[in-house]
């Protein structure tokens, strides 16, 4: 009987976030909390973290086996292989971006939190990038070297993949939000997302190609950055709209 019939004795300050309390969390702090939560969750389930990277390694391994083990043959296609593999790995992790949160009701709580859903989803996308984009950017040079790229190309490959995956994560967040309510959405998600990813692929592969050839790769990386900025301003809005519709 500890819990019942004790009304009034407990401490109950007035309603906090009801417009009168000043303790409501600003949008940015809320977004930071969402980011921290996703990172913590990811490190509690490490296997999901490693899978896209293993996938990336396997895809790049397929090409020497399927085409030719000779580096002079592989070198001209290295940029394309690295980028196609990065694209597919980033896509692989996307299906999980909102899936768990949608199933356990977390997404609903975000939508009803009184905070901007756009910001919270942007934070989730940032977590996705930190967990797949950054590791991919660090792994891509290894794949490049294995395919015959010179050591001097490493900074260029890292830069282009790091910037390009920002755009990929953002575009992907729209696809993931759109297919939220669909079971077995993998193939559809790819069909929706990959055509939109094509500019990223083109500029990214070009930057990597130039880096491997020892040339200046500034222009395509800048174009990638422009895509990332455009994605940053529009993608979270579209994703939030899609999530709202799917929660309806």
């Amino acid at each position, binding site marked *: *009987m*500890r*819990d*019942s*019939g*004790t*009304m*009034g004795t*407990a*401490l*109950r*300050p*007035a*309603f*906090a*976030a*009801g*417009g009168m*309390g000043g*303790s*409501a*969390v600003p949008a940015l702090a*809320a977004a930071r*909390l*969402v980011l*921290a*939560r996703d990172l*913590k*969750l990811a490190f*509690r*389930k490490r296997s999901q973290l490693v899978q896209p990277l293993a996938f990336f390694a396997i895809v790049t391994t397929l090409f020497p086996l399927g085409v030719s083990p000779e580096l002079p043959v592989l070198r001209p296609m290295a940029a394309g292989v690295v980028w196609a593999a990065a694209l597919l790995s980033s896509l692989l992790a996307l299906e999980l971006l909102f899936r*768990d949160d949608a199933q*356990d*009701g*977390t997404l*609903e*709580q*975000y*939508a*009803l*939190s*009184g*905070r*901007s859903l756009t910001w*919270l989803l942007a934070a989730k996308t940032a977590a996705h990038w930190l967990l797949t984009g950054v590791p991919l950017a660090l792994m891509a040079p290894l794949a490049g070297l294995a395919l015959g790229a010179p050591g001097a190309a490493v900074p260029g490959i890292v830069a282009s993949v790091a910037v390009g995956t920002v755009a990929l994560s953002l575009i992907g967040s729209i696809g993931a939000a759109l297919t939220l309510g669909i079971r077995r959405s993998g193939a559809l998600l790819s069909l929706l997302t990959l055509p939109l990813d094509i500019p990223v692929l083109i500029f990214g592969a070009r930057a990597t190609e130039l880096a491997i050839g020892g040339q200046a790769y500034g222009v395509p990386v800048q174009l990638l950055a422009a895509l990332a900025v455009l994605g940053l301003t529009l993608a979270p809005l579209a994703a939030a709209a899609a999530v709202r519709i799917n*929660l*309806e």
Partner: protein
Amino acid sequence: MSDFCLEGENVHLWRGDHHVLRGVRFQVRGGECLQLTGANGAGKTTLLRTACGLAYPEGGEITWCGESIRKDMQAFHAQLAYLGHEPPLKAELSARENLEYWVGVRRLLADEELEHALQRVGAQQWADRPVRTLSAGQKRRAALAGLTLMRVPLWLLDEPTTNLDAEGQRLVGALIAEHLQAGGLALAAVHHELAMTAGQGLQRLELTVA
């Protein structure tokens, strides 16, 4: 004692060809709790989701303190807490961590407050175990702790007593009664009547299957 008021005026909503909400009307004021009853499929959950703005009614309007909830949805959401069928908890995190993130997105949370809320739902023993290892009733209790920590005037509860034992059901009743006494209001979809002292503020709205 408070001028909070949630009103539904002639709310219509379809799901596909199914006319789920057919001109529903309700009014809940500060200090009142409206119990939604009705068979499965009568639209209890749908009405809750419409009341909080997740679902969009094709006819009629929901108002909060006299203004349409659509006018400033974000401000309206800042004043409500919604508890769905499933407690929104992550299996890999402990109950305490879950509450820190869940409530933390909305407001700054002091440690003593969190401690007090956990104590209130009887969670001291298992607050630091991963939610994965908790029973359904314990998860529900953790979610109730989150609910009280929101400190918002409007509670929307979907079957709040599911999976709870007799004592847990009394706890829900006590929490709601306390909430009402502080001037809050609640809308609860229920299968069994809430275990509350009859009298103050308890109303009922029966929904029927189309």
